[in-house]
């Protein structure tokens, strides 16, 4: 019997220009057990309190006014929300309820992050986790303001999670996967994932995301998948 593909999709609202907001569809899958266990060990060793920071970023972008309310809510019902999210995930449901407002989603993610972060200490091993980045002088308009000379653990996590970009339309659309015959904006990323090419994946990802904030959200989302029980 083939392994059940545990997949999740999100639509991330990103600012692509002055006053211009776009919804980007993304999908990831849970890595195979041996890769999951190896990634948990290595990322866990480098992580420290990092998930909490990333979930806060997620929350801030999704709903800037909700920060204060989140602070209060997670103190009172944080663990219950996190466990509810785990149960939803375990029964094969997406962590995002179809009717749940954006504020609710960020609260859930933050609650999960806090439960994960609870009891963790130490400091973040930045170079191990994020890689060493350098300034990108290409200024070609499509790339981020920085680039990675080599992939990091978090890039590896996104690749092993088979991250896919499903476009910015009102509904998600899968890349066809046909080489040379696909004008889908997520085609290069899908091809890099299919071939398992880390360097190509990093380049394609940099050119697909709108900026560092979106990349941060994707990493937070993939980390949540790595840690939560599907």
């Amino acid at each position, binding site marked *: *019997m*083939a*392994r*059940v593909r*545990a997949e999740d999709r999100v639509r991330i609202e990103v600012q692509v220009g002055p006053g211009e907001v776009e919804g980007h569809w993304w999908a990831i899958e*849970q*890595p*195979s*057990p*041996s*890769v*999951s*266990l*190896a990634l*948990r*060990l290595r*990322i*866990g*060793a480098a*992580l*420290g309190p990092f998930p909490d920071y990333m979930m806060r970023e997620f929350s801030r972008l999704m709903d800037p006014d909700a920060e204060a309310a989140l602070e209060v809510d997670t103190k009172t019902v944080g663990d219950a929300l*996190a*466990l509810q999210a*785990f149960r939803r995930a*375990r029964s094969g449901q997406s962590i995002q309820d179809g009717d749940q407002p954006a504020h609710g989603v960020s609260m859930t993610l933050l609650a*999960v992050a806090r*439960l*994960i*972060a*609870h*009891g*963790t*200490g*130490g400091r973040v091993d930045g170079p191990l986790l994020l890689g060493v980045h350098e300034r990108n002088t290409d200024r070609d308009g499509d790339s981020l303001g920085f680039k990675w000379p080599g992939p990091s653990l978090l890039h590896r996590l996104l690749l092993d999670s088979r991250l896919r970009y499903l476009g910015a339309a009102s509904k998600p659309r899968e890349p066809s996967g046909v080489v040379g015959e696909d004008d889908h904006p997520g085609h290069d990323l899908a091809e890099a994932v299919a071939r398992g090419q880390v360097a190509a994946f990093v380049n394609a990802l940099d050119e697909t995301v709108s900026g560092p904030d979106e990349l941060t959200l994707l990493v937070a989302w993939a980390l*949540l998948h790595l*840690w*939560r*029980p*599907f």
Partner: protein
Amino acid sequence: MAPFLGRPGYTPLPRPYDPPRAARFPDPPPALAGMDHVHGHVSPGVLVRVAQRLGISLATIDATMTTDEVLDEIDVQSYLYDVDCPPQTKPPR
């Protein structure tokens, strides 16, 4: 650091009086991923234990099981060990 804090996993019985393992654990085979020991949380070679209990290969685990199913198996084994091998209640003489 606890990699599996996000999951409500099984907590094994405390064993303060059990004699500690005298010899060191061997390093896992370098070609096999996911075998490492996470101190206090996952014993070394858990994937091999899962494969052994289920009578399947490591490749079959990756092909047919999700991570949470593997973690469930690890929990089952810890639980059964506690059932079958009760902890020592007195310090050794």
